[in-house]
């Protein structure tokens, strides 16, 4: 019976806390929204500007979130954590799960590039700098995921954003040159846009 009482009071204390949380939750929610989409750590001041709240409040909300994710709030511990690294905040997979991630990533990325990836890479190599939509229209298929793969493999890189459209232009990396065993792009065999005189260098047997 006493236990029940204790439970009940804990319950209502927790409830009070929950209400308080609810009041501030919009700020933690806004921070979480930003955290979900950023690639690079974001500094406290930039974050405060992004969520439109004063720096001290943001700092406090970040602490709340860190505690939350570590399982020191009301909910369970999360599989990710919020960390301040190099002057900025960002979500990271909790270290406990690194092996899981390594295994998953290893299973995801095959050792060989697909035919689609290779053709896209070839288009970028010969057309660079080139945007994704330009590649897509040459290949007549969507190349978004293939471009991601090539980026992740370090075979291509983002060169610059088009000043007008903001579209990112891609080019190949030195790593590709190393794989091909050449020193510069000039050493790529010339291909003519017209097949007739390009056909010399075009050996069906080597393609498949």
């Amino acid at each position: 019976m006493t236990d029940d009482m204790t439970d009940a009071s804990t319950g209502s204390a927790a409830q009070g806390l929950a209400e308080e949380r609810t009041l501030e939750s919009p700020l933690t929610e806004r921070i979480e929204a930003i955290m979900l989409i950023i690639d690079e750590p974001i500094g406290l001041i930039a974050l405060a500007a992004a969520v439109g709240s004063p720096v001290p409040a943001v700092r406090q909300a970040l602490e709340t979130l860190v505690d939350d994710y570590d399982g020191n709030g009301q909910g369970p511990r999360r599989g990710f954590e919020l960390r301040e690294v190099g002057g900025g905040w960002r979500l990271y997979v909790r270290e406990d799960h690194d092996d899981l991630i390594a295994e998953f990533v290893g299973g995801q990325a095959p050792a060989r590039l697909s035919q689609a990836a290779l053709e896209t890479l070839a288009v970028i190599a010969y057309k660079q700098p080139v945007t994704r939509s330009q590649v897509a229209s040459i290949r007549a298929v969507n190349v978004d995921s293939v471009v991601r793969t090539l980026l992740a493999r370090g075979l291509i890189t983002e060169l610059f954003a088009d000043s007008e459209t903001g579209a990112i232009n891609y080019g190949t990396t030195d790593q590709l040159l190393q794989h091909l065993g050449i020193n510069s792009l000039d050493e790529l065999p010339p291909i003519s846009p017209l097949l007739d005189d390009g056909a010399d260098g075009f050996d069906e047997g080597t393609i498949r």
Partner: protein
Amino acid sequence: MAPSPDESTALDAAGTAEDAAGFRVSLSNFDGPFDLLLNLISKHEMDITEVSLSAVTNEFIAYLKELDDDEELDQASEFLVVAATLLDMKVAGLLPQGELVDAEAVALLEARDLLFARLLQYRAFKEVSVWFARCLQREDRRHVRAVRLDEKHRRKTPELVWSLTPADFAALALLAFAPKEIPHVGLDHLHAPLVSIREQAAIVVTLLRGTESLSFRELVSGVSEPGIVVARFISVLELYRHAALSFEQLEPLGELTLRWAADSWSDETLATLGADYDR
């Protein structure tokens, strides 16, 4: 008689098509949105044969002129689809249907049902495209987590196996650049090349003056294009109007024999020949 749409139907149909603001039709027997017209026709509350498609078309062209380019293209392509279908329906509707249910009449009915179906099907897809647009727009605003893999995890990816030589790579590039031409059905046959009646008349004149008489069959021998045959026939009629030739036909559908009969002929006449057919 084509009824003017009664109030309740008009309200009902207008309610379902309210966002289809846009092109309105004003005919002697109908005034309202184009969509409503389609509704009424598809519900058999208006007879397609009572609708003047040319009047609708004229109004539509006037309406298009007030739109900007993008809108114009969309609306025009839609109108073409619908108008073409209406035209088909109208043709089917105007053809005589015997009182007896013979095979031909049944086929005709089926053809009409098919056209209805086509119209309704087209409209169904057009309507549902609104749902597509709304979902795409809503989802465009959503943000999904798509963050590059941490360097630390990226290093765990298996080493890339690379076996292409620069020549292989160039061959791949050629393959990739080869235009993936989507084969398409030519529409050229829908636009028969224009045939000049004047040119054909000149040929007819030359042929007839060089000989005593010619049958029409001989006049068009070796010509395979229907357009040219038609143009030659029209020029024969035109030349006859100018009393430049005479013809005789001994029996209905029989051989048509042509003779050059002009007393005075100048090539200036030729220059104005067939002006009625100019547009």
